[in-house]
């Protein structure tokens, strides 16, 4: 195992850090030796000539074996499809070692760059002036497009909408007092609290579970695919998913199907008894009940109106229920197409109402429940003699369930977060899977042999060993969520954008999307920058630790 892991490294990054750099470090390096010593151990005597073993590898060696493995393993694990592609020479081996540690196993890079920065022999180092030449285009672009804008924005945020009047901090003040920006801050908080946790958790679950299926490559590709799709396209995709009409939006189509499977709402909205004294049934608390108590043996008639003929055009003609044992009766639409017919009597052209829930109530308690047949008849069998009130509960007459209003003001943020998870879960999964494949199998196997359940193995071994990767994924997601713009902009329809608004979108709306207040826009962008500063520091710290 160890050999396989370390094998491809030899020509690449870690070897440069380790044994090979020791001898090369010449004493003729006085200017750089102190920095090497100071960076790592802080002891001046252990500089180059005193200790042929380079300083950097020491912290690496003290790390647990896991993180060491993590550094090299991604070489094999990080490709989704060609997981075990052999390294094609020094480059294929060197690249993953050089690059992934920053992301996957920060601790393991300890040597990699410290020697690159500190141990280049002076006589072979080209002049610093050359560095200026190499760096100039990049520095110019970053200075003009990134650093200058920060300074300009700070200055601009202290002025009003037109930029003529100095207003001090009042733009910042209004971020925290204006109700619409408060909504955006509230939404950003929801995003930051909910989305990174779900994405990381799903990524972890999927990464662990992909190890148990044979088609894990296909699975990873499917989940990872949204990363390649533009957020605009993802937005269009989810606008279609969230369409209100269950005949168009797949989300509501699924929800209504499931809902209808569990609640047998026949759906005769609007059906009601006639409102006159002759009608044998009346409306009470939304339910239709018989005016008189019914006795078994005498069929009950419950004529209803209020339904269009198209609702019952395929229904069977209503029939009178046969008498005999038990309580029986008919529920039907007491309307003849084109007029005519006898009120409260079953006429041949009139249609029965199928699938209506009927209850027999006695003393306020439901004694029996049945459902009408195609011709509208129903029968309670085995009911004790006595008198009952026949009731058609309100459920029969409520409107059919039409799904959720995903894109309405109350559900819009959860709906967009759902789309966000769809886009990013694959990213988390791939990163975590790369870390997972670096965990030594021996540790897991040993725990299993000792009788640990899968859950215990997961909880006590896998998750703790993965925690550096999980942290990286989590932090990456927080940074990303703070800047979320496209998905909200595209998925939220114009009318609910105020309710779905987030800081990055509000910044655009205020300064370009019709707001025309660049003072406020600058303040918002500075606010956004301040929010990511902690993560900037996190990245810098992580990098410095990695570089030893």
């Amino acid at each position, binding site marked *: 195992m160890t050999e396989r892991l370390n094998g491809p490294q030899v020509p690449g*990054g870690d070897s440069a850090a380790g044994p090979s750099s020791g001898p090369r470090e010449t004493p003729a390096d006085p200017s750089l030796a102190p920095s090497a010593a100071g960076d790592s151990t802080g002891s001046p005597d252990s500089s180059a000539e005193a200790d042929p073993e380079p300083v950097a590898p020491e912290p690496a060696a003290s790390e647990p074996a896991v993180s060491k493995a993590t550094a090299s393993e991604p070489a094999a694990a990080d490709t989704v499809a060609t997981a075990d592609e052999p390294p094609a020479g020094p480059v294929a081996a060197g690249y993953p070692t050089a690059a992934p540690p920053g992301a996957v196993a920060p601790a393991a890079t300890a040597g990699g760059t410290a020697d690159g*920065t500190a141990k280049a022999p002076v006589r072979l180092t080209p002049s610093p002036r050359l*560095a200026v030449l190499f760096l100039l285009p990049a520095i110019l672009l970053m200075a003009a497009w990134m650093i200058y804008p920060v300074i300009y924005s700070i200055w601009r945020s202290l002025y009003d909408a037109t930029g003529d009047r100095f207003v001090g901090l009042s733009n910042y003040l209004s971020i925290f007092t204006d109700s619409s920006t408060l909504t955006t801050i509230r939404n950003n908080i929801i995003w930051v609290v909910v989305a990174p946790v779900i994405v990381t958790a799903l990524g972890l679950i999927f990464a662990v*579970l992909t190890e148990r299926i044979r088609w894990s490559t296909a699975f990873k*590709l499917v989940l990872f695919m949204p990363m390649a799709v533009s957020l605009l396209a993802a937005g269009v995709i989810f606008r279609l998913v969230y369409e209100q009409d269950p005949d168009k939006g797949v989300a509501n189509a699924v929800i209504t199907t499931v809902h209808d499977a569990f609640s047998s709402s026949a759906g005769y909205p609007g059906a009601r008894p006639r409102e006159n004294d002759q009608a044998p049934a009346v409306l009470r608390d939304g339910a239709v009940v018989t005016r008189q108590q019914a006795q078994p043996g005498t069929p009950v008639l419950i004529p209803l109106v209020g339904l269009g003929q198209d609702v019952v055009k395929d229904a069977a003609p209503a029939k009178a229920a046969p008498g005999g044992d038990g309580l029986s009766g008919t529920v039907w639409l007491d309307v003849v197409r084109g007029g005519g017919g006898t009120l409260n009597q079953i006429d041949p052209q009139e249609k029965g109402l199928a699938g209506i829930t009927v209850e027999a109530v006695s003393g306020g308690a439901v004694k029996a429940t049945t459902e009408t047949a195609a011709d509208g008849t129903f029968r309670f069998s085995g009911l004790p003699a006595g008198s009952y009130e026949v009731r058609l509960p309100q459920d029969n007459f409520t409107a059919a369930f039409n799904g959720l209003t995903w894109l309405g003001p109350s559900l819009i943020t959860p709906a967009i977060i759902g789309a966000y998870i769809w886009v990013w879960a694959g990213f988390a999964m791939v990163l975590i899977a790369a870390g997972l494949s670096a965990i030594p199998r021996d540790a897991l196997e040993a725990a299993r042999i000792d009788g640990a359940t899968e859950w215990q193995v997961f909880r006590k071994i896998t998750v703790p060993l993965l925690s550096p990767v999980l942290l990286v994924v989590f932090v*990456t997601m927080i*940074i990303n969520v703070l800047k979320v*713009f*496209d998905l909200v902009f595209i998925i939220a329809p114009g009318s609910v954008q105020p309710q779905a608004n987030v800081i990055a979108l509000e910044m655009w709306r205020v300064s370009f999307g019709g707001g025309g207040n660049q003072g406020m826009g600058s303040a918002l*962008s500075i606010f956004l920058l301040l929010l990511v500063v902690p993560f900037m520091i996190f990245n810098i710290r992580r990098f410095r630790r990695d570089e030893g």
Partner: protein
Amino acid sequence: MTTLAEPRHARPVSRGLITRVTDRLGSGVVQIFMILIALFWLLPTLGLLVVSLRGETENNSSGWWTLLTKPAQITFENYSNLLASGFSSSFWNTVLITVPATLLVIGIAAMAGYAFAWIEFPGRDTVFLVVIALLVVPVQIALIPIAKMYGFLGIFGSIVGVVLFHVAFGLPFAIFLLRNFFVGIPRELLEAARMDGAPEWRIFATVVFPLAKPAIASLGIFQFLWVWNDLLVALVFADTDNQPMTKALQSQMRQFGTNVDILAPGAFLSLIIPLVLFFAFQRYFVQGLLAGSVK
């Protein structure tokens, strides 16, 4: 050996049977769960494709999944209408923005990364820490100042302005990724070249650049996708003549209900090339991801 194993052997057998059964059951449940998840992830994109292939009246009257029972509904009318309406010009704008923005970032970042990795100069570490700090700077911070600057330079609304913006904001990640790769290149190679007296330009071009192909591929695909898929920068800096697909489609979003026959094929066209690239180079894509998951 066998005698040693004997006493431990007794219990695991009975437990082994149980675990075998539960494992099989468990893996069955896992299989089904994973199939459902995969379907869940595929369905939305499939829906977009099907909607883009159905006529307007069908889309208004029934769900896209009814295509499963009525395959005759398929039509390419939406696509031909879309292309006839001038969408292809925004496609070319996307290409004209993405290709230079990708190539420039690779070239400029490779030079800078080389300097950070292999040339000594005072303040190198500090400058590199600034680059790392710039990794997470939000695009929003630059919109207003750069709009002013472009107005002053007279390139507001032009493709050049959009490209330069993407190049600048792509640089920190690109430098970070390439520098970390260059540092891992065996120094023997460089030193041999330097001993031979090769100028730094030639070492860079003939030794480092060819060795760095995998890293450059990772960076290239990342930057390509980032620029191709961008909406915000185009929204602010590209005017209607120079707008890429994303901006062209965004302008249709307002009437989403009636514009599905434009939006669905447009969105699908815009994601074909990224998807093809993704499947062709996913190896490098993932490597880039692992290398720089900070942006």
